C-alpha cells in the first residue's frame, strides 16, 4: 500500500513536472494554466455539463475498447468506426417520409451501431482473412472513413449553396436529443453511457464470453485446444467495439454538433485508447479517468483566449499521464524481479 501511494506520487509529479516544463518553454504562466483548466471544467454547473458531453462518448469508446483489448487486439480503427457510426445515424436522420422524432432517433441509433459495427467487422476481416495487422487495417479504414465523410459533406450532403468544412445543415430541433434545462448533456447520452458501463462489466467479468475473450487474448493457440475459435471471437470483439464507437458517433451528431462535420470523432477514439491504457485495461477506473480526461479537454478550450496558448495542452497532459503510468508500472515490475 505504501508502495502504491509512492508510485502514484511519482507518476503525478512526473506529469506536473513535465507539463510545467512545457509551459515554461512556451513562456506561459504555469499556475494560471492549471487554474484555468480547473475553472474551465469543474468550476460551474454549466462547464461541468459540458464536461459530461465529452464524458459520454469517451466512456462509450472505452467500453468498446475493453472488449478488443481483452482479446489482445489494438483497435486503432476506432476513429473510423465513430465516423461510420455518425454517418449511419445521419443517413437515417436525413431520410424523408418519417414523422415521429422518437422513431427516427431510435432507428438512427440502430443505424449508427450497425455502421460502427460493420466498420469494425471489416478491420477484423482484414486481420483474420487479409493478413493485415489490425493496427494497419484499422488505420487504412480510418483514412477511408475520413475520405468518405469529406466526400459526403462536400458532395451529396452539402449544404444548399455552399459546401464547406463547417459541415452539413443543422438538424431540425425536434431531432436534437433533449437535455435538462440549462445543461448541455443529453439525458439519453448519460443513460446510454451508464448502461454501456454496466453491460460491459457484466459481459467481460460475469459471462463466458468475457472468459473466452480473455483466453484468446492470453494465448490464441491454447484457446483452440478448448474449442474456442480465435477468428470468431476476434471478429465478435471488434464488432462490439465498433458498435460502441458507433454509439459515440450517434451522440456526436444528435447531442453535440447536431450536424455532420469532418472532424465528427473529435479524436475521442484515440483519446479513449489512451484512457483505457491508463486504466490498466480495467473497467472500474474508466468512468473516473474519463471524467478527468473530459475535464482536461473542456478546460483547455479557453486557454487560447485567456493565456494565448494552444488548447492541445490537454493532449500533452493526457499523453504524459499514460507514459508516466507506464513508467511507474515498468519500475514496479523491475523491483519485483530484483
Amino acid at each position, binding site marked *: 500500500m505504501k508502495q502504491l501511494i509512492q508510485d502514484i506520487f511519482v507518476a503525478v509529479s512526473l506529469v506536473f513536472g513535465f507539463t510545467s516544463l*512545457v509551459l515554461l*518553454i*512556451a513562456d506561459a504562466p504555469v499556475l494560471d494554466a492549471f487554474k484555468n483548466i480547473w475553472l474551465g471544467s469543474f468550476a460551474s454547473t454549466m462547464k461541468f455539463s459540458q464536461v459530461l458531453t465529452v464524458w459520454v462518448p469517451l466512456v462509450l469508446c472505452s467500453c468498446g475498447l475493453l472488449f478488443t483489448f481483452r482479446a489482445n487486439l*489494438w483497435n*486503432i480503427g476506432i*476513429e473510423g468506426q465513430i465516423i461510420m457510426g455518425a454517418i449511419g445515424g445521419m443517413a437515417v436522420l436525413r431520410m424523408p417520409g418519417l414523422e415521429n422524432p422518437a422513431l427516427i432517433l431510435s432507428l438512427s441509433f440502430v443505424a449508427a451501431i450497425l455502421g460502427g459495427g460493420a466498420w469494425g467487422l471489416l478491420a477484423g476481416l*482484414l486481420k483474420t482473412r*487479409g*493478413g*493485415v495487422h489490425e*493496427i*494497419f*487495417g484499422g*488505420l*487504412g*479504414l*480510418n*483514412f*477511408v472513413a*475520413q*475520405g468518405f465523410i*469529406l*466526400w459526403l459533406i*462536400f*458532395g451529396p450532403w452539402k449544404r444548399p449553396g455552399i*459546401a464547406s468544412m463547417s459541415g452539413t445543415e443543422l438538424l431540425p430541433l425536434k431531432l436534437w436529443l433533449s437535455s435538462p434545462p440549462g445543461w448541455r448533456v443529453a439525458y439519453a447520452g448519460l443513460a446510454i453511457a451508464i448502461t454501456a458501463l454496466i453491460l460491459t462489466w457484466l459481459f467481460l467479468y460475469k459471462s463466458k464470453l468475457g472468459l473466452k475473450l480473455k483466453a484468446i487474448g492470453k494465448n490464441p493457440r491454447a484457446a483452440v485446444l478448448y474449442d474456442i475459435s480465435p477468428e470468431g471471437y476476434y471478429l465478435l470483439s471488434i464488432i462490439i467495439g465498433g458498435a460502441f464507437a458507433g454509439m459515440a458517433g450517434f451522440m456526436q451528431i444528435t447531442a453535440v454538433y447536431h450536424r455532420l462535420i469532418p*472532424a465528427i470523432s473529435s479524436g475521442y477514439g*484515440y*483519446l479513449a*485508447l*489512451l484512457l483505457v*491504457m491508463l486504466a490498466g485495461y480495467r473497467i472500474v477506473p474508466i468512468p473516473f479517468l474519463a471524467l478527468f480526461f473530459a475535464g482536461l479537454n473542456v478546460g483547455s478550450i479557453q486557454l487560447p483566449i485567456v493565456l494565448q*496558448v*494552444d488548447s*492541445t*495542452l*490537454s*493532449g*500533452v497532459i*493526457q*499523453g*504524459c499521464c*499514460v*507514459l508516466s503510468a*507506464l*513508467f511507474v*508500472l*515498468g*519500475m514496479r*515490475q*523491475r523491483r519485483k524481479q530484483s
Partner: protein
Amino acid sequence: MLRIERPVCSGYATEAQTIMIGDIPLSVLVASVLAASVPLIIIALGEMITEKSGVINLSLDGAVLFSAMVAFVVAKESDSLIVGFLAGGCAGMVTGLIVGYFSIYLHLSQVAVGFALSLLCRDLAYFLGNPYSRVQGPTLISSKLPFHDMLPDFLQKITTQPLTVPFALGLIVLLVWFFKSSRAGLQVRSVGENPAAAFARGLNPNRIQMLTVLAGSFLVGIGGAAYSLSLKPGWGRPQGAEGIGWIALALVIFGSWQPSRVALGALLFAFLQVSGIGLQSLFPTIPSQVFQTAPFPLMIFTLIIMHYSTSKTRKHGEKDSGLHKWLGILFMSRAPKSLGKSYRQE
C-alpha cells in the same frame, strides 16, 4: 486528420513538354515524385533500421511532426538550415530514447508506449509550435548539379533538387551495404532475429538495440525536418506531414525490411500523391480532399495484395515455379524474427 494544402509540385516550371501525363509534363512529374518521396524515404529507412534490431517505434507519426516543428523553430531562430536539420534529428532521437528505454530496459509493450508517445508528440508539436504558425522561415532551395548546363533539358528539370535528394539516395546505398556487408550490420540483424543467440555469441543485445533505435530515430527526425524545411516549408496546423509516420510504418512491411524495396514503396506512395493532383482536374466533381486522402488507404491496402499473392509461396516455400515464384519474389515480406518482443538480458 490529414490535409495536404500546398501542391507537392510547386516550384517547378510547368511549361509545355513533349511527353505529358494528364496535364503534367513527364519531367515535372518525375521531379515532383522524387522530391515528394525524399522525406518519406528517410523516415521509412529510419524506422526500418530500428525494426531490424527487433524494436518497433510506433511513435513515428508524432515523432515526425515533433521533429518537423523543432527543426523549423530552431532553423528560424538560429537562421541556419544545418542547425535546424540537426535539431530535428535530435528531436527524433529523444522519441527514440523514450521508446527504447521503455521497451528495452523496462520491458513494456512497445505498441502501448509508441502509441501514447505518438499522440503526446503530436500535441506537443502543435502546442509548442503554435507561435510559429504560418511564419516565414528559412527554406532549403533546389540546387543545380555542377554540370547542369551540359545535361539535356529533361534531365535538368529532374536533377534540380534540394540537397535532401542526394542525401536520401546515398542513404539507400549506404544501408544496403551496411546490412549486407558490414560487421555492425550483421550484429544488428542477429539481435533482431535472435537476441538470446546473439548474447551467447558475446554481443550485448540491449546496447545494440538501444544504439540502433537512436540511430533510426535520428533519421526519422531528419526526415521530419525535410518536411518543414524543404518539401512543405513552414509550420502550421495541419503541417502537411500528418499521417506520414503511419505510411512509413506500412512501407517497412511493404519493403520487407530491405532498404531498396522500402525506398521503392516510398516512391510509389509519392507517385500516388502527385498523380492525385493531376487526377483532380480530370474529375472536378469529386472534392479535392478525397484525392489527398486516397493514397493513404491505397498504400496500406497493398498489404492485402501482398498477403494473397504470396500465400502459396509461404505454404510451399520458394520451390514453386512460374507466376507464384515471381509473386513470391516480388511481394514476400519477412519480418525480423523477434520483432516486437522484449528480450530480458541476464
